[in-house]
């Protein structure tokens, strides 16, 4: 099936119905393997056992940014091609991205207290991540404020494109400013600085979280398509009554 055919909502629904059970099963297996790896990982020579929080914190941070990246591409689809599936993707991704960003902030605070001696500092990385979370809330609020889905989609798309400025700020904040947050240690020029005994469970958990993200996104997109069909039928019902 050509990829463009999936842009048809009916075909997407059929594909979602057949793939969601498989994606869910794969996600459960990936998490079972990832959590086992995380529990068996050795303690870090500096962080001790709190390194296990990193197996949640780092994937959550990546997915918080990935979701906004998906929304940014979808926003272009909305504004340039006005494709309804782009609107659906953007709306479905927002709450999932918000949840992962919130989890990143919570787990970061819980790691910061024993390691830094504080739950929160107004550090560039932490502040830009908090701004990303607030941007998610703003987009979600915008979707719920405008009644007409296509108008809401255009407004949300503009906010999403403006908010995308925060993504490089989050990523490079540790390089641009002197921050308490550590610099990049996984994907960096010259290779990762993390020992394989900790890097392997981290990447395994990142894989599991990514599978969870894809599963939730496909499921939420299916719900959004159904919601729009319900809306269409409610409008038909209202016009039939009047």
């Amino acid at each position, binding site marked *: 099936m050509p990829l463009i055919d999936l842009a*048809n*909502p*009916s075909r997407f629904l059929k594909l979602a119905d057949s793939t969601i059970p498989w994606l869910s099963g794969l996600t459960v297996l990936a998490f079972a393997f990832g959590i086992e790896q995380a529990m068996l990982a050795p*303690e870090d020579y500096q962080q*001790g*056992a*709190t390194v*296990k*929080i990193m197996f*949640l*914190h780092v994937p*959550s941070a990546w997915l918080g940014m990935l979701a906004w990246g998906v929304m940014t591409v979808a926003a272009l689809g909305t504004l340039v091609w006005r494709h*309804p*599936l782009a*609107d*659906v993707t953007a709306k479905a991704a927002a*709450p*999932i991205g918000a*949840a*992962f960003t*919130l*989890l990143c902030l*919570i*787990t970061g605070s*819980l*790691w910061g*207290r*024993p390691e830094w001696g504080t739950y929160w500092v107004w550090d560039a990385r932490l502040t830009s991540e908090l701004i990303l979370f607030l941007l998610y809330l703003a987009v979600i609020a915008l979707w719920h404020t405008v009644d007409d889905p296509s108008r809401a989609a255009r407004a949300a798309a503009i906010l999403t494109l403006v908010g995308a400025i925060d993504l490089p700020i989050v990523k490079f904040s540790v390089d641009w400013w002197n921050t308490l947050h550590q610099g990049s240690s996984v994907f960096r020029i010259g290779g990762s600085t993390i020992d394989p005994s900790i890097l392997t469970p981290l990447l395994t958990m990142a894989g599991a979280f990514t599978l*969870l993200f894809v599963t*939730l996104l496909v*499921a*939420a997109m*299916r*719900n*959004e*398509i*159904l*919601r*729009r*069909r*319900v809306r*269409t*039928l*409610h409008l*038909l*019902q209202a*016009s*039939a009554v009047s």
Partner: protein
Amino acid sequence: MEATAHIDFIAAAYAAAVIVVGVLVAWVTLDYRAQRRTLADLESQGFARRPSLRGDGAIGAATGTSKQPAKEQA
């Protein structure tokens, strides 16, 4: 010793992850059921997105729809 001192922070982080993921899974599952149920209720009343699938002529007449299937919409 260090691990014992910080186990509450580790447990809290994993509990937060379980709660956040649990809420997301519950949200998509319950929302799916609600949309499916509402869609089935509306379709059982004779409302359909495509005019050719509608149950009776009243709705088609009310909306002035033709027998030509409507352009696919989300």
